[in-house]
């Protein structure tokens, strides 16, 4: 633990109260760890995005003219592995969650600061394994590692990649563990469960999934590594092993994992919509409980990834009906967000634009999920571009837009600077348009039957692929802009006030950037969450 030095006179905060690389690499401060995560997660996102660009570039023509088949397979595998395990899963929880949860509940830190730092190092270690795979020749299994391809036939570095993800899993587990203990035991006096911000509820549900699901995928990939390394059979049909068992174990985590990605975004959106409507979220308890319901029911639906895989159709039907039930809490959230804006005082600042974009895209992502949840429909659509479009609508349109919304919302709090309002709105618009252009055509491609993970494809699919690639370049531009204006703002941005958006949560009641211990005195909460009548100290920027 770093013990804070006596406060200096010159507005000390968590960024400047200690200096030097060591003060960052050995920090126990959840805010600094959040920033370490922010940096590393952004690097992996950029890398994953580079692979995405290669994929779209290759698919502009039906023939395989840019990459060899083997290279293409490695490119989409690396795109998936990096984006899923090293960007989407840690993105909001490990950066914004890490930074904000203790502040939102009026605590000085997470319950276990050293474990928090350890989780970042584990993440980096897992990342190093994955980068090693990347540099030494890649891996071509797809991010799903299906056996027996991964164990017996792949010519990629399955063992190193499997270990990388195995290791990375523990980072996720430790983060989740820290969150749950912190939310249970570190809340400020007076902060009851139903006074918690919805962001915290969403992260509580996320953390529960991390703890319950991650170990299963960890042990599964570990078995794959053992099977590949020592040729002993766990899933190998040569010994009577069952590859479908691998898929069960894999999706037991990897389906709930999409809720790890999207629930925190929902938390962000709940905060942002309320703040920029200056209104308590409509149906607070319903939004809160729907997060928990998604986490619980989310564990009962993994089998809809196995409808055509050789699973019993009776199991498939149960998974199908349960998948519809998990859709309801998501619908509840969407309608409650819309209702929150009703008779609100809506300000279309950048975070709000991203959040509104989230609602629109997530709605489409969720609704197309209904197609895939229907067993009969799924038989035609699974393993086609329809699935690719669907999960990008939830993962990019959902998780990524929520992440960007959150970054724009709390940027002034984290760094004490404002960014360009003009450029950020341009970027939000480009991302929204580019995203839809990229992924909407893929729904149509999917219904026409274009299978996913195809390097070359029949010429009748080209029109939509060209549209998609064109959209991807707009999307790429939209995503590059924030990197520029946000970095620029660190030095040249207008100094932000403590509460530039007129938001409620406790995190806005301390200075921007916050002091090392978050609060001068531990706050005592006496009002309900989102009580806009108690707003003081309001400075508008923009």
């Amino acid at each position, binding site marked *: 633990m770093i013990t804070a030095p006596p406060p200096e006179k010159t507005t000390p905060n968590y960024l400047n109260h200690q200096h030097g690389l060591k003060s960052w690499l050995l920090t126990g401060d959840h805010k600094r760890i959040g920033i370490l995560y922010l940096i590393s997660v952004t690097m992996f996102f950029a890398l994953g995005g580079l692979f995405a660009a290669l994929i779209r570039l290759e698919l502009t023509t039906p023939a395989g003219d840019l990459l060899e088949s083997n290279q293409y397979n490695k490119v989409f595998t690396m795109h998936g592995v990096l984006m899923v395990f090293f960007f989407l899963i840690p993105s909001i929880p490990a950066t914004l969650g890490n930074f904000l949860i203790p502040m939102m509940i009026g605590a000085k830190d997470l319950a276990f600061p050293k474990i928090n730092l350890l989780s970042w190092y584990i993440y980096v270690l897992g990342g190093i394994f994955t980068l090693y795979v990347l540099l030494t020749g890649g891996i*071509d299994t797809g991010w*799903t590692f*299906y056996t*027996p*391809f991964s164990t*017996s036939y*792949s010519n990629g570095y399955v063992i190193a990649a499997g270990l990388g993800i195995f290791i990375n899993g523990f980072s996720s587990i430790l983060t989740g563990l820290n969150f749950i203990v912190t939310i249970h035991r570190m809340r400020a006096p007076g902060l009851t469960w139903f006074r918690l911000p919805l962001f915290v509820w969403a992260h509580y549900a996320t953390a529960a999934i991390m703890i319950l699901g991650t170990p299963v995928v960890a042990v599964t990939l570990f078995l794959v590594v053992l099977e590949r390394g020592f040729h002993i059979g766990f899933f190998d*049909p*040569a*010994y*009577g*092993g069952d*590859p479908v068992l691998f898929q069960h174990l894999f999706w037991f985590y990897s389906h709930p994992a999409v809720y790890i990605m999207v629930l925190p975004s929902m938390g962000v959106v709940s905060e942002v919509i309320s703040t920029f409507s*200056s*209104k*308590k979220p*409509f*149906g*607070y308890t*319903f939004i809160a409980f729907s997060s928990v319901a998604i986490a619980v029911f989310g564990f009962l639906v993994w089998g809809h990834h196995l409808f055509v*895989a050789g699973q019993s*159709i009776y199991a498939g*039907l149960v998974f199908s009906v349960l998948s519809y039930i998990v*859709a*309801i809490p998501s*619908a509840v959230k*969407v*309608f409650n967000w*819309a209702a929150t*804006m*009703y008779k609100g*005082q*809506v*300000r279309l600042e950048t975070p709000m634009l991203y959040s509104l974009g989230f*609602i629109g895209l997530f*709605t489409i992502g969720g609704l197309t999920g*209904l*197609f895939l*949840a*229907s*067993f*009969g*429909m799924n038989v*035609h659509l*699974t*393993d086609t571009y329809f699935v690719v479009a669907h999960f990008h609508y939830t993962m990019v349109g959902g998780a990524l837009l929520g992440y960007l919304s959150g970054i724009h919302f709390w940027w002034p709090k984290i760094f004490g600077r404002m960014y360009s309002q003009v450029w950020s709105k341009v970027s939000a618009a480009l991302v929204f348009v580019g995203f839809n252009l990229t992924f909407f055509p893929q729904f*149509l491609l999917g*219904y*026409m*039957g274009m*299978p996913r*993970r*195809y390097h070359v*494809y029949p010429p*009748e699919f080209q029109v939509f692929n060209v549209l998609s690639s064109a959209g991807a370049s707009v999307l790429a531009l939209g995503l590059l802009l924030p990197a520029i204006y946000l970095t620029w703002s660190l030095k040249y941005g207008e100094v932000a006030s403590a509460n530039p958006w*007129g938001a409620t949560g406790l995190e806005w009641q301390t200075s921007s950037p916050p002091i090392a211990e978050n609060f001068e005195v531990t706050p005592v909460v006496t009002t309900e969450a989102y009580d*806009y009548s108690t*707003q003081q100290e309001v400075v*508008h920027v*923009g």
Partner: protein
Amino acid sequence: MTMEPKSFQLFPESASNFAPSVDGLYTYMVVVSAFFSLLVGFLIVYFAVKYRKKPGQGIPAPINDHSIGSMILEITWSVIPLALSLVMFAWGASIVFHESRPPADAINIYVTGKRWMWKIQHMEGAREINELHVPVGKNIRLTMTSEDVIHDFFVPAFRTKADVLPGRYTTEWFQPTKIGDYHIFCAEYCGTKHSGMIGWVHVLSAEDYDKWLAQGSGEGSMAEQGESLFNQLGCGNCHVKGGHGRAPNLYGAFGTKVDLSDGTSVRFDESYTRESIIYPQAKIVAGYDRIMPTFKGLISDEGMLKLIEYIKSLGDPNGVVPGKTLTSEPSDIQKSGQMAVPMSEEKPQAANKSTASAGTSANAGRQQ
């Protein structure tokens, strides 16, 4: 190939009995989804415009909390979507039950996936690679397996697909309704040339199909080829007609329920046949000894299919509807006290021709 690709289309060809019902469900879902997308989109845009505060006016004054929740609304927007989606579930379930029950009169065709090609065997003996000739208007049943990794036999124009697994059999059936040529895609990622594991279904008129079949392969029907394999392997030394041998009777046995030595029973189907050949000791028929040697690595996946087809052809499987069981005939089964394994000494070369991948073929069939 034979088909002129269309440059622009929104729906794939509709060429099987399943296509209309899947398209119908799809249309229903598109309408429901479009309605809700537009509703949410409209509400958001409408509220954002109507209640918008212009920038520069500062943070608005707090408003009355007159709309912070409504149980009636919450129930409404939970129940209506749930009801609409349960229709999707039920509709989809009815389609999938249809897709899971191949009619008894279906023409059996066998598919073996191998990186990166589809090998297809017709009962009459014709064999083809990456092409499948079928007659229009007849029910077709595919029994599929893989020599290596998981593949998936997908025909978009038929709106159906199923994974093709190593060491197991999966089933897919359809009735082509329109003469023409349609894509076969491998839809489960299977390695380097996954996107090259494609082919064509040629749906022919009945006359054209008969003509095509008549070209034949010159190797006899699958059952005949299976029989010669059966004899080469010496199976008949023990598996004697009428059950006088050291091994269970195979005549008329396919599709029946078999009682096992551990008190359980199993349906004599493709997977059980395969398992019993590769792992003969996994499930012992009640009253017999563990004397059968393994044929693991000696029979290719295609050879296995021929043996299965031969065993199916033994005796009359009439009226054997998958899922129904016939009673086995205990009078046909005799106890055997013999011990030795009368295997012919030379391993048959024909069956042994394949391949390094034979070692990976195994049975993951999981009868109880």
